[in-house]
């Protein structure tokens, strides 16, 4: 009984259980992130087969994951808008079916364009409908232990990319890529079961959005509903825009090492096994960093934005030092700095999500997450090609690492311009602003209704991309995977006082 929130739909948003069924939802997030991003990372196995079967270049084939990731990020706002309208459970289940459908249709492909459409567009849209709502649901279930829950949920990505590559190789050998894609479609269908695990914690916006006397399907009401579901009011919210700029800068620099670390190691003269070991070790410290950061943030010693700035600053620093570490052919130096990079990159991830409710409030968290995904995809699209260009121009990876570190430090500085950054306590005025803003814009909405629209900016989507499938990955396939940051809002202050 304690597991179920009493459905107080007329009241303000119910207090998050912070445990109990929430941990089941964390398990669902674990499986979901494993199936979405683990599959994306391990697609390299299929790329070899596609290149051979369709006789296309590696570049053409790598567009598949690029399109898939781009769809996952750009359709995110619509995913969260549907969540606002219909609740997370049906949306995630529909997303699971959609992504499975993409894989099943892909097994019948006869040209690469079919793969673009099925694996890229259809599965990508399915992933968009799954990932952001899943993250938002976990964030709603937890307040005090939010970061830890998110960090644990995201470890699924790291672990699955270790396990999936050999598994996919085996499937391809037994059934060729067609049969393997079919079986992957079946595996993706498990996300429907994960979606079924999300028990709604209160009603969604649909109930509250209708004003009396207005028909449900008139133009104005549809426009208003779309506006409120998509949280477009956030585009006028200066702190949100500041934060999304910072996250975009983060994204520019975040993925560069994943793309270039192996090549840089080989460039410095290390063997293929040594380079692969560096990447694997970085992946392990990434997972560890996530969990440690999640746990540490929940202790409440430092404010979330401060911890975020700490980790991103360290990350930028380690990127700047990366070319130095391998100077003189020193393998321990390269390894140590890469481990530091992995740890800071993982530590940053939960915080990026956690800070969002502090900025935009729990009401608009959901829409903000979607919008943030879309905005930050720009960073990912720019970052990797830019670093590749720098490498081509200068002949070594030093310049691209320095630029990536520079982007991260720039994002850190932009983060410090957030309102109330330098105060020592969590501030609440943001939510009140948001609420007044909401009142002005949408008359039908009352702040006291149990709104699930929390704008959680999913800042760093690209956290977990690529390191595990290097050979076939080029910059196109490096689209970042949306890592959900755990919103580490000291939600003690957050949710409890939102509606009061």
């Amino acid at each position, binding site marked *: *009984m304690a*597991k179920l929130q009493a459905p107080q739909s007329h009241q303000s948003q119910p207090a998050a259980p912070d445990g109990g069924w929430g941990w089941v939802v964390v398990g669902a997030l674990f499986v979901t992130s494993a199936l979405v991003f683990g599959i994306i990372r391990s697609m390299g196995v299929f790329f070899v087969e596609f290149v051979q079967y369709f006789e296309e270049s590696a570049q053409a084939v790598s567009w598949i994951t690029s399109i898939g990731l781009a769809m996952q990020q750009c359709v995110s706002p619509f995913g969260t808008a549907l969540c606002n309208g219909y609740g997370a459970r049906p949306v995630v289940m529909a997303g699971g079916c959609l992504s499975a459908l993409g894989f099943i249709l892909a097994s019948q492909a006869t040209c690469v364009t079919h793969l673009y459409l099925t694996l890229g567009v259809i599965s990508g849209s399915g992933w968009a409908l799954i990932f952001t709502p899943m993250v938002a649901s976990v964030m709603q279930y937890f307040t005090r232990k939010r970061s830890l829950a998110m960090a644990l949920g995201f470890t699924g990505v790291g672990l699955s990319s270790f396990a999936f590559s050999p598994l996919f190789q085996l499937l391809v050998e037994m*059934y*060729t890529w*067609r*049969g393997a894609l079919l079986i992957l479609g079946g595996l993706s269908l498990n996300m*429907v*079961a994960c979606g*079924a695990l999300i028990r709604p914690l209160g009603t969604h916006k649909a109930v509250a959005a209708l004003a009396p006397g207005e028909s449900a399907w008139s133009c104005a009401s549809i426009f208003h509903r779309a506006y409120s579901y998509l949280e477009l009011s956030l585009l006028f919210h200066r702190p949100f825009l500041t934060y999304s700029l910072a996250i975009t800068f983060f994204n520019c620099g975040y993925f560069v090492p994943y793309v270039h670390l192996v090549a840089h190691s080989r460039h410095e003269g290390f063997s293929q096994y040594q380079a692969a070991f560096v990447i694997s070790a970085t992946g392990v410290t990434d997972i560890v960093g996530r969990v440690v950061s999640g746990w540490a943030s929940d202790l409440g010693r430092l404010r979330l934005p401060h911890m975020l700035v700490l980790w991103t600053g360290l990350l930028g620093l380690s990127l700047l030092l990366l070319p130095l570490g391998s100077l003189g052919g020193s393998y321990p130096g390269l390894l140590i700095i890469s481990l530091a990079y992995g740890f800071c990159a993982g530590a940053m991830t939960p915080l990026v999500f956690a800070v969002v409710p502090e900025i935009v409030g729990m009401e608009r968290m959901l829409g903000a997450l979607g919008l943030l995904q879309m905005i930050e995809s720009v960073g990912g699209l720019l970052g990797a090609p830019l670093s590749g260009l720098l490498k081509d121009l200068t002949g070594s990876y030093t310049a691209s690492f320095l630029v990536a570190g520079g982007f991260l430090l720039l994002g850190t500085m932009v983060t410090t311009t957030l309102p109330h950054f330098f105060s020592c306590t969590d501030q609440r005025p943001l939510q009140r602003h948001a609420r007044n803003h909401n009142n002005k814009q949408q008359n039908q909405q009352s702040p006291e209704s149990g709104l699930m629209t929390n704008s959680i900016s999913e800042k760093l989507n690209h956290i977990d991309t690529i390191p595990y499938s290097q050979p076939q990955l080029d910059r196109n396939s490096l689209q970042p995977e949306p890592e959900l940051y755990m919103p580490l809002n000291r939600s003690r202050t957050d949710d409890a006082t939102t509606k009061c």
Partner: protein
Amino acid sequence: MFSPWILSLQLILFPLFWRGIYTTETNPELVLTDPVTTVFKSAVLKGDSLVEKVEILKPVDLELACTWTGNPNKLPNITGYWRKDGSEITNSRLTVQLENEQYNLKRVFRITGDTLGNYSCIFSDTDEAKIYFNVAAPEMDDKKDKPIVAYVGDSVTMACKTKLPPNAWLWYKANGTEQELINATTDPLRYKISVDGNTTKLTVMNLTEEDSGVYVCSAIYNIKASVSRVEVRVITFMEPLKPFIAIVAEVIILVLLILLYERWSSQKSSHSPTDNGVHAEPTHKLTREGNNGMDENTTTRQRKI
């Protein structure tokens, strides 16, 4: 007429003439045949043994030269001889002198399709120092040990590659011990053979189950043909479909279980002490626990009262 001068001149000239024919001391056969190119291959041995690969495209005379520098004893004379495929070549034993801290042994072999094999020169001291020359036609580049899997109705492409382009490529399908030549011109709808210098590709279209088996690609050189085998396995779409359907069934069962569990536990909790109409709900299909909930309810309400 035949003055003794002329006779003696003839006697002198005759051995010279005889000598002119046999210009080498080692292989008399060389002179008697058509001009054949000579390939030179040498190797230096520092330790105990060494293996070298010699690729031959057409019948040649192969001169193998061995040099051994690693003898600790540094005897002025040791015995050197040649072996072919493990057995000693007759009349090949020679005494080798130490020159410039090394021993040299040289021999010319006529290589044809029948005489390919493993030639080795051996320096015989207290131990034997050997250099092996593996004289063979060029081998294929990639070894395929895993079978290629393909679906019925689909097409499959097999490739063979060598370093040096052969005169011709041939593809066979192995039926037990027999090999059946694949002719792309008689069967253009099913087979397609393309040749591109040192690579060849065989595409089999409209696969059926009988197309499973071993395919052999053969690179024809002047000296011998070099072969490589690849296995093809044709499966129907039912094979991956079985695990797929198993997974779909598992997902459906999981979803049903989750939803049923949720309904059951929400019904259980709705019998908790908050509603007035609890007693009026007899028809739920709950288990004992549901009944317990009702009991708790009653007791609680009584306690409240």
